[in-house]
């Protein structure tokens, strides 16, 4: 196993190279009229095969919609390639001229695929089949828009809200509003009050600022984004980003350093009955909304309190992420793929899926906390139809905060070097957390690295045009 990745690398590299030098696969430069024709909606009933890579219909949300999509494509054999999207497997299939007909990826991967010509622009698909992209949240669309063309149809939204242990807050005399994210000095001082340790070991984490992953959130709430809106300029050493990192890292410093907090948090039973809230070992943290479901299922009696995450300007804010459907270059059944996408993301399908979920939750005597589909129309309809007040303030607050966050999201734009860009800033944050570097020099280095990667990738794209 140890040498395997090298081996994998070599195999795929060669395949890519040999195939792309040899036969043309029509990738990247498909002329638009041909594409439009391929997506042609109703003239002939689609038939043949539809292999979907990266999607698993594991829960009722997935399986309900999949059944509907299959029904919409009666003559088509739909098959799922199991497991998360493996970039190697996907790209090797595209390069070998044998791609799946449809691919399901993280939204932040789309820019890289698009810039390499691995997925097709979907403008023709959207217009010919009338996919209602205007219903989809703008930040989600921005994540899959590369060079002004939409390359994928987004679905799902993950947003952050603040989750707290009300007992600990009460004992420490801390108000939940102090931890909303608006007032940074208040968070730091509340953290010191909430944190507890015994015998040199941490026993309560006061506040977890969730670095490295939430740096974009802290930076945005301070008025700066890590990447310019056109996806070309890294802004990692912007003074406001440096300030955000200094603050979020300072929260860990106030509790004895990141190493202690991480070790303690890693040891917690995050998905179990003895999670940090149930055991009273965490004061508060910003966290994605799906965790509400875990808490509701595993520790319904824990003393919980929820509130929206708020930026320095006093407005609720959340960093959105999610999945997206795209059609690979060389897809042999683009029309069927387009119909499939349309069905999966249609409001009616979401409603059916939400009903299945709400029924399942009711059967297990659990709360239905809503569903963020990425489609605003569907979100509203689901909320008004299926989300009922629970009678418990905490859960109702959680649902309210979730929907508020969902209405106030931002995202980073699609860019051709997303993996390198991410590695650059995450490495910088980690060096700071590990005590190897100060925020400013760490982010300066990251800025240089990220910009070099972006410049190179954009130059390659610009040259291709």
């Amino acid at each position, binding site marked *: *196993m*140890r*040498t*395997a*990745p*090298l081996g*994998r*690398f*070599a195999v*795929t*590299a*060669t395949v*890519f*190279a*040999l195939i*792309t*030098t040899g036969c043309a696969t029509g*990738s*990247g430069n498909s002329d638009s009229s041909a594409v439009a024709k391929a997506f042609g909606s109703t003239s002939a009933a689609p038939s043949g095969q539809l292999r979907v890579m990266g999607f698993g219909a594991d829960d009722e949300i997935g399986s309900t919609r999949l059944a509907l999509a299959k029904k919409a494509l009666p003559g088509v054999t739909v098959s799922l390639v199991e497991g*998360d999207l493996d*970039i*190697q497997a996907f*790209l090797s299939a*595209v*390069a070998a001229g044998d791609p799946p007909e449809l691919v399901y990826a993280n939204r932040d991967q789309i820019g*890289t695929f698009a810039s*390499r*010509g*691995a997925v097709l622009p979907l403008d023709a698909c959207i217009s010919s089949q009338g996919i209602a992209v205007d219903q989809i949240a703008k930040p989600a669309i921005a994540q899959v828009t590369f060079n002004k063309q939409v390359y994928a149809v987004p679905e799902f939204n993950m947003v952050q809200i603040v989750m707290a242990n009300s007992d600990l807050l009460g004992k420490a005399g801390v108000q939940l509003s102090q931890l909303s994210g608006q007032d940074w000095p208040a968070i730091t001082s509340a953290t010191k009050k909430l944190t507890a340790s015994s015998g*040199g*070991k*941490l026993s309560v984490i006061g506040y977890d600022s969730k670095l*490295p*992953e939430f740096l974009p959130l802290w930076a945005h709430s301070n008025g700066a984004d890590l990447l310019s809106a056109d996806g070309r300029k890294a802004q990692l050493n912007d003074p406001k980003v440096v300030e955000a990192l200094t603050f979020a890292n300072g929260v860990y410093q106030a509790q004895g350093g*990141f*190493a*202690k907090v*991480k*070790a*303690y948090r*890693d*040891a917690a039973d995050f998905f179990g009955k003895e999670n940090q809230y149930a055991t009273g070992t965490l004061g508060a943290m910003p966290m994605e909304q799906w965790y509400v479901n875990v808490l509701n299922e595993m520790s319904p009696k824990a003393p919980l309190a929820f509130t929206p995450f708020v930026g320095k300007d006093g407005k609720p804010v959340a960093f959105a992420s999610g999945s997206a459907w795209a059609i690979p*270059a060389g897809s042999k059944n683009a029309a069927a793929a387009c119909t499939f996408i349309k069905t999966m993301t249609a409001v009616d399908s979401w409603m059916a899926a939400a009903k299945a979920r709400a029924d399942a939750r009711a059967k297990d005597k659990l709360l239905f906390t809503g569903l963020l589909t990425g489609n605003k129309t569907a979100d509203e309809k689901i909320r008004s139809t299926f989300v009922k007040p629970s009678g418990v303030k905490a859960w109702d607050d959680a649902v309210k905060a979730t929907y508020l966050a969902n209405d106030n999201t931002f995202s980073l734009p699609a860019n051709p*070097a997303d*993996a*390198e860009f991410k*590695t650059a800033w*995450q*490495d910088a944050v*980690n*060096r700071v*957390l*590990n*005590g*190897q570097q100060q925020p400013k020099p760490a982010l300066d280095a990251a800025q240089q690295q990220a910009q070099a*990667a972006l410049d190179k990738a954009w130059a*390659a794209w610009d040259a*291709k045009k």
Partner: protein
Amino acid sequence: MTSGLLATSKAVRHSERKSAVSAHDSRAAWLFISPWLIGFAIFTAWPLIYSGYLSLTDYDVINAPNFVGLDNYRQLAADPKIAQSLGNTLYYTVIQVPLHVLVALGLALLLQRAGRASGFFRTAFFLPKMTPPVAIGIMLLLLFNGQSGVINGVLGWFGFQGPSWTTDPNWVKPGLILMSLWTVGSSVIIVLAALREVPDHLHDAAKIDGANSWQRLVRITIPMIGGTLFFLLIVNTIASFQTFTEAYTAYFGSGNTTYSNDAALFYAIYLFQQGFEYLHMGYASAMAWVLFAIIMAVTVVQLVLSKKFVFYLGGHR
């Protein structure tokens, strides 16, 4: 150290000279080795040449490779992460490999005298090799946890304050090295098999002469199995230059973890990032070639430092 091996090669030489096979058998010989010859041509020689070509191109996976001459190698020489990852890899190799061989030898010596129960113990020592690495990776993070891990718990009994194995840059590599010793199983079995070949009468003779067990180990056992130990050293050096799985699972994760640690960035991990996360296949090919050159150089040095291995593998001269 050399005597055992000399004995081996002498013996081989002896038996071969005595019965040299006549020349017309050479056709049969070529037939016997033909499977390997074919495999070598297809699966080794050609790939070598091709990846060499790729290393001279700029290649983003989907579009055709674009010839850029030695650019990748120039870029590589100036890349600080190359130096850093090579440094990490060397540190790991220098400490892990001798430890690995020593532990394998120690466990094999213990096993050798386990008598009837040895079947159980052999299976026990081999068990981590058979357990899916992902499962082991997750569990090890729990064991090495700085606050609540079993390892630091045990250290605590003896009054030591254990380090933050999983976050402190100074302790990440030692932690990984300890983890890697878990999969020492196949080396144990190899050493064990070699130990079984040490003739009993040598030990008996030494016993009669009053040698204690430590003396017998150093003067008889180790020289007699020197060839095997040396081979383990070489093979594990090659493997540890390519070390990947443990560090990748623990610190670079399956996309869900954003925490990483520079101290665990090994060469193979950086190569993987370049090739598959950043899609710089040409650059990654160049990295693979540099790694090949380094391994070759290190192996040659090891061989030169220990002429005995040359004897050993040459069989006869």
